[in-house]
């Protein structure tokens, strides 16, 4: 987006500077680096290969929960997208769900962080910072983009947001109040800090309660302060006032407070006077109190509360800009929050990509805003590119997950929802997943089938078949070849069976071959093998008639491979010699035709005479038998 960013540099240890190195991709996210000497270099060649991969924090066990749980929310949003009608309340629920997941993640990180050793602690604290900031930004975006703010007056929600994220002073206040000691200012050194903190967050009830515990609480100045605070008008959409009506009322109240200040009514206590000045909306006082805030937007909320309580969303930008500039805030989250208030989503998305969360935030947030219809991104030529941006972020995130040994199923469910490039990428990535056990392969195949990628199914099954063959599991290889429906491969495996039979005289994997069913038709060679197997089955249980008719049908079928003729012909001999006449005269003629055509195999030479003799004898018997039958 921004052309001026210089890319990060990654230093590879033990490699001299300016040595020529070459990089080759390992797969989608790993790169292999090896050295090439520059010409004329005298250095000894070092044949080390470096394989680099970006560290993905999402793969750490603490964050995998977040990855998986948010995947469920993402998929649920995809379902909502196809629903017509007002889906905003539903999406707000989902936004809250995302934040709920973030908070659960932060809570569990805090939990672990407290219990772990220092070397791990650092990275956990880093995670905490990242996800804490994400939740903070998300919360604000939810207020400004997802939620419907009544009357468009955003201050109440902003204050809530601030109070939630900066709770420390309110906690102090509550602690002080719990003791109910009169003269709390003398007891607690952080008394005024707490009062100021509460005032900045607009927690006037707490301010009043604290002031009531002050040692001089009975002093007229304090009584007056109490009165001022009690009467301060607070805007409420449902309060019955119009904005104009409220503003008049509020201005009158502010004027009165100012005149009190001018008459030095609060001079008895400097702190009290300062607070009243803040409440009267004095700009300078606000900045004096900035030391009590942790972020510029805390100050922003205070400013709006005391100077512009009916601020609407479009006016937010100006105030935000002023304060953040003066504050000189420039962390990614500062920039993101400012951009949110400026309604510059393009900038928001850019900034959140710097947050170091491997694209989790950008992908899920943009998807939510997209579903809300709030994403309008224009390129330099004012062409809307929201679709492209949306898809590119989700693709990127899905890709990242596909690179993990276990999270690939999760990754795939993101790619599936990218209409333009998603399936093309999934196709490539699915094929490149390492295969492992058949249970894993079946799950990979499932995703391929779900997305109608038949050629991927075929390819994976075939590779699995090749693997089985290498393992010496010919039967299993055939099972996978049948799943692949690759007739060339099936033929090849059937050939292996037949060749082994030709060599060793034993049919392997009878349990499989005898139960092929209609799968036998997948290739001619397999049909032959299956039928030949059936022939053996019949023969072995003494069903010679069945066996013989199978054999003859095999002989006339034109399916016999060249190397198998001698075996088939030899198999006929015992049937010809059987006590009963099994083969008919026409069968015998077929046999003679076959032996003329295919009996020239060297392996058959020693049997050919026996064969001819056997056929002749059988023919004679058959003819006489058939002659008798005709007469009858």
């Amino acid at each position: 987006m921004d052309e001026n960013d210089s890319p990060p540099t990654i230093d590879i240890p033990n490699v001299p500077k300016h040595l020529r190195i070459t990089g080759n991709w390992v797969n989608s996210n790993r790169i292999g680096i090896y050295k090439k000497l520059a010409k004329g270099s005298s250095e000894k060649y070092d044949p080390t290969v470096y394989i680099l991969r970006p560290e993905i924090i999402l793969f750490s066990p603490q964050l995998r929960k977040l990855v998986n749980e948010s995947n469920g929310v993402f998929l649920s949003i995809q379902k909502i997208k196809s629903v017509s009608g007002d889906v905003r309340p539903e999406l707000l629920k989902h936004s809250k769900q995302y934040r709920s997941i973030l908070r659960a993640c932060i809570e569990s990180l805090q939990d672990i962080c407290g219990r772990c050793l220092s070397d791990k602690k650092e990275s956990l604290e880093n995670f905490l910072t990242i996800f804490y900031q994400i939740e903070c930004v998300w919360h604000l975006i939810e207020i400004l983009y997802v939620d419907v703010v009544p009357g468009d007056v955003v201050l109440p929600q902003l204050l809530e947001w601030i109070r939630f994220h900066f709770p420390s002073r309110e906690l102090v206040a509550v602690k002080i109040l719990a003791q109910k000691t009169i003269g709390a200012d003398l007891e607690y050194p952080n008394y005024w800090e707490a009062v100021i903190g509460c005032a900045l967050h607009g927690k006037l009830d707490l301010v009043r309660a604290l002031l009531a515990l002050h040692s001089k609480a009975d002093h007229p100045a304090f009584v007056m302060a109490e009165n001022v605070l009690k009467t301060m008008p607070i805007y409420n959409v449902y309060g019955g006032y119009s904005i104009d009506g409220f503003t008049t009322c509020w201005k009158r109240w502010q004027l009165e407070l100012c005149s009190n200040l001018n008459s030095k009514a609060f001079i008895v206590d400097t702190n009290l006077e300062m607070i009243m000045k803040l409440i009267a909306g004095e700009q300078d006082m606000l900045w004096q109190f900035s030391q009590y805030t942790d972020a510029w937007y805390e100050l922003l909320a205070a400013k709006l509360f005391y100077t512009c309580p009916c601020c609407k969303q479009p006016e937010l930008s100006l105030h935000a800009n002023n304060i953040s500039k003066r504050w000189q805030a420039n962390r990614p989250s500062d920039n993101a929050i400012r951009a949110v208030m400026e309604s510059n989503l393009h900038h928001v998305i850019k900034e959140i990509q710097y947050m170091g969360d491997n694209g989790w935030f950008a992908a899920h947030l943009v998807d939510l805003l997209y579903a809300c219809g709030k994403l309008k991104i224009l390129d330099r030529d004012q062409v809307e590119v929201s679709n492209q941006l949306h898809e590119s972020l989700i693709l990127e995130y899905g890709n990242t997950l596909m690179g993990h040994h276990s999270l690939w199923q999760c990754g795939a469910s993101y790619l599936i929802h990218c209409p333009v490039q998603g399936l093309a990428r999934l196709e490539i990535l699915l094929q490149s997943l390492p295969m492992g056990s058949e249970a894993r392969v079946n799950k990979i195949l499932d995703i391929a089938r779900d997305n109608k990628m038949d050629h991927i199914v075929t390819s994976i099954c075939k590779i699995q078949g090749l693997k089985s063959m290498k393992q010496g599991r010919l039967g299993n290889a055939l099972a996978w070849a049948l799943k692949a429906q690759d007739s060339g491969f099936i033929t090849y495996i059937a050939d292996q069976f037949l060749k082994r039979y030709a060599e060793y005289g034993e049919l392997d994997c009878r349990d499989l071959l005898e139960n092929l069913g209609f799968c036998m038709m997948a290739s001619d060679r397999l049909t032959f093998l299956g039928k030949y197997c059936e022939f053996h089955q019949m023969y072995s249980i003494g069903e010679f008639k069945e066996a013989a008719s199978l054999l003859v049908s095999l002989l006339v079928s034109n399916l016999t491979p060249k190397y198998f003729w001698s075996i088939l012909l030899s198999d006929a001999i015992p049937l010809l010699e059987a006590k009963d006449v099994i083969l008919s005269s026409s069968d015998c003629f077929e046999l003679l035709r076959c032996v003329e055509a295919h009996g020239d195999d060297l392996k058959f030479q020693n049997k050919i005479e026996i064969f001819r003799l056997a056929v002749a004898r059988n023919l004679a018997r058959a003819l006489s038998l058939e002659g008798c039958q005709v007469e009858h």
Partner: protein
Amino acid sequence: MSENVQGTFVSEKISKIRWKHEDFEDATNFITGSWDDPVNKVTHWIFQMNDDGESYPAVVSSYAILGDVTEIKFISKDFFVLSTSIGTVRLLQIHENPYSQFKEHMSWEFIHKFDNTNDYASCTGLSTFEQDIVSVGEDGRINLLTAGQKQPVRSINDADSCSIYCIDFLRHNEILTGNLRGHMKVWDLRNDQDLPATTFMLSDQSKTEATSIAHHPTQRHIVVAGGGDGSLTVWDLRHNTYPMSQLNAHAKAVSEILFHPDRPENLFTCSTSGELWHWNNTQHSKLSLDPTNTHWLNTIGTNGKVNVTSLCNAMHKPINSIDIDRSTLLFGCDNEAIYVVRNITV
């Protein structure tokens, strides 16, 4: 979403989940096995109360397992056997003294392997009968083990030309295996010959794989098998090997079938499609003691009066494993979460 389903994300895909049953009270402990990470784990969990008075599962201890966990079966109250995708079977104990941890008592390494390449083969499943264990694998081998002995009692090396996917002890001397092609083989272990007593097909129409087998807890001749196409097939092996009924059930492969151990008229099935179903038949009195009473599964083909309810919305990832203790059901999923469903009416 029903209120009685509660999930916990565990940062690993769960391949197996098993209650540790107690004799006279509700179970509170269970075990999970994970898959697809470089190093996987078997984990012991306990249900605890949190501050809000809500029961949630907490880890008691974990034990690293090389390869994917492919099956877990308890053989006694605290001893269980597990199989892995690198061809090993392990006998572990949940050892309570001095603190709860796993103790390995026996490990049968490398008992499933491809002889040709000397690579390990995945042990796809195991079944137990008292102390006896039988394991099957992608190498088409059946291993008979017994808990107290390091050497396998017997190996049937070429039991199947294809990968065997599931196994069940029908009786002490009879086992049933199912393979990649849906071939079901009954093996009589008294027979020294390495040949099955009977072979029959999961389905005549489609050559889908047999993915799981379960038998009726009291009428062990009633057997249900799940297919790679999501179908369920029921046999009464007393009569013959023709299926009593065949049902098109789930949208994708059936991952596990489970009879309720105490109320066998309730059947639970889960699937790769993310579905979790509860099958029962209210027509039959639960108190019926008539021994000739046929299970509804046998007659479903003729009268078809059976209730099927899904216990939760279809998950977006495969459900791999289920287990039930009284009215509380657990299931484990590829979305790296375990779920508990309470108060199931059985």
